[in-house]
């Protein structure tokens, strides 16, 4: 196994990790503020993929519409939250989790109904074009997705740090009751958080659409478990943790795939998950949305 092969795996892992990070950030945001694990998160990613494909079939480049997909799904997510999740926020956790599972099933069914159960593809003419140096080959598609993902992550970070709404979200994640006493409309913050979180997942979906086949269960099959691992590794609720965790897991999976073979890539995430929960249950970082 040459050094270049390993290097390629690491770089690919980093690029993939950037997308993972975006998904994980959304998930961790939702957990941090609302304290629920959104089991339907992967479906929003899949939805983003499908929307990008539909846009492409209408002649639009997925990268141009990515931000619009983010916005559209964010609104959808916020709506779903008000209808399905908000009424249950006082109920026991298992109920809330099962509601998101119900939502997940509904979304899979809806996507299957609208786009059919078969694989869909978004083929750009330059899908195979790549940057090459030495033996290392990185497709433009992956590079651009990483770039946009990084930009969006930075934007989200700035949003959380410097805008009133972002600060309200951070406050609500630390202590919803105190936040309410301070005059923050926690109900609205919850809704916005869920919207933003799911929007980020959909954005990630739009970005990876050129690189993968889309089918209704794509998100659940390939992205939900790495997302969970990253969220736990980066400490649940910690935004920066999710970013860094995403890159770490991306590389780990890349190397794992190299060593164990592509079929077992998922197993690497799962085993990492078990290991992280065993030894680092609170993740690498302390605290909440930082």
């Amino acid at each position: 196994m040459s050094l270049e092969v390993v290097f390629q795996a690491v770089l690919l892992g980093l690029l993939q990790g950037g997308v993972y990070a975006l998904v994980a950030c959304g998930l961790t945001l939702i957990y941090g503020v609302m304290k629920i694990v959104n089991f339907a998160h992967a479906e929003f990613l899949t939805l983003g993929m499908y929307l990008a494909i539909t846009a492409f079939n209408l002649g639009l480049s997925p990268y141009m519409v990515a931000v619009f997909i983010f916005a559209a799904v964010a609104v959808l997510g916020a709506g779903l939250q008000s209808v399905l999740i908000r009424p249950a926020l006082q109920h026991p956790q298992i109920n809330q989790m099962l509601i998101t599972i119900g939502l997940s099933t509904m979304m899979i069914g809806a996507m299957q109904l609208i786009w059919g159960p078969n694989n869909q593809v978004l083929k750009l003419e330059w899908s195979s074009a790549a940057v090459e140096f030495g033996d290392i080959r990185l497709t433009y598609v992956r590079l651009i997705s990483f770039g946009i993902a990084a930009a969006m992550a930075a934007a989200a970070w700035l949003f959380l740090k410097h805008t009133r709404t972002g600060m309200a979200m951070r406050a609500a994640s630390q202590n919803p009751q105190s936040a309410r006493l301070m005059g923050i409309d926690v109900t609205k913050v919850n809704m916005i958080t869920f919207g933003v979180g799911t929007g980020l997942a959909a954005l990630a979906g739009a970005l990876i659409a050129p690189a993968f086949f889309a089918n209704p269960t794509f998100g659940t099959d390939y992205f939900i478990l790495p997302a969970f691992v990253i969220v736990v590794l980066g400490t649940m609720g910690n935004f920066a943790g999710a970013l860094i965790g995403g890159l770490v897991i991306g590389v780990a999976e890349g190397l794992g795939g190299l060593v164990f073979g592509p079929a077992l890539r998922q197993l690497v995430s799962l085993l990492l998950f078990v290991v992280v929960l065993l030894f680092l249950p609170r993740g690498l970082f302390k605290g909440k949305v930082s």
Partner: protein
Amino acid sequence: MQNTNKSFFADWTNWQVVVAMGFVVACGVGGSFVESDYLLQVMVLAAIYAAIGTAWSIAGGLSGLLLLGYISFFGAGAYLDGLLFTRLGVNPWLCIVLSFFSAAALAWLISLVTLRFGLAEDYFAMFTVALSQVFKYILLNWDYAGGATGIYLTVVKDDFWILSFIDRKPYLYIALLILAAVIMTTYAVQKSRMGYYLAAVRENDQAAEALGINVRKVKTQAMMLSGGMAGSIGAFYTQFATFIDPKQVFSLATNFEMLLGPVLGGRLSIIGPVFGASFLKPTQDFLRGWMGGEADAVYLILYGAVLAIGILLLPKGAAHYVQIWHRRRYAKQAQARAADNTETIAIVGASK
């Protein structure tokens, strides 16, 4: 005062166990008249789901543990039976017993790892879910266990000794027997001291700890009991289905389907899981069969909606309302009895 028949039923748990057992017996009797293999199949699966749901309710309901990845135990038991029976010729009845202990041991290990440092419940939930998928991936790639092809029980003849029958009816009776055993176990737990410990832990585990309850030990015991029973049910399932593969017995979708019964039925109750699964599983099977094919997507939407809306409308499960009815019904009797007692005391007092 001596315990009359009436005050026995006045207790909610007692009332439930009689109703549940009565239902099991009725299903057994009714099942003996059913001739359609399809219908019997549906009934056996419903009984299996009811047993799983009731077994889950010890850890997931009574103890309040967020046992979301329950199928890990079911699948482990299923595979243990499959492997031991087809590869080593171990008697299936013995396998059912062995699966109980193996699954319980697995539960013990999981508890050891996750029930410490006061880890948040969410971690526990995600861990159990992830574990089920780890098993799935390992088994998918393990050739000795059949890999993706799974395990086939090639011997299918009428032989009670190896738990194999051509007709579906004996399977139904055994499934109902297992369900009855699970019901009685849950009843015994609810009535015992352990039941009270679990309830205390569920309501407020810090207060329970302060009262001297060994919270970790009690939670572990509940996990072992629930997990063990799921293992046994899984082992039986292998014998019944005569074919298992990792995607089937470790499926996350099936996992959540199994939780539908107890959660919508009422996970703190006995009748909740039993009737919940008995109603939901056959309905699901019929809907799926009726809709099938392309309408599978519609089925998924309906199913997800039922789950989400059902939980929103019935957060405590349907059994909660039955309990309210029961309380009202027997409250009148309790009042009458109390009035009798005071009269007796008054008479006795007056006669002194």
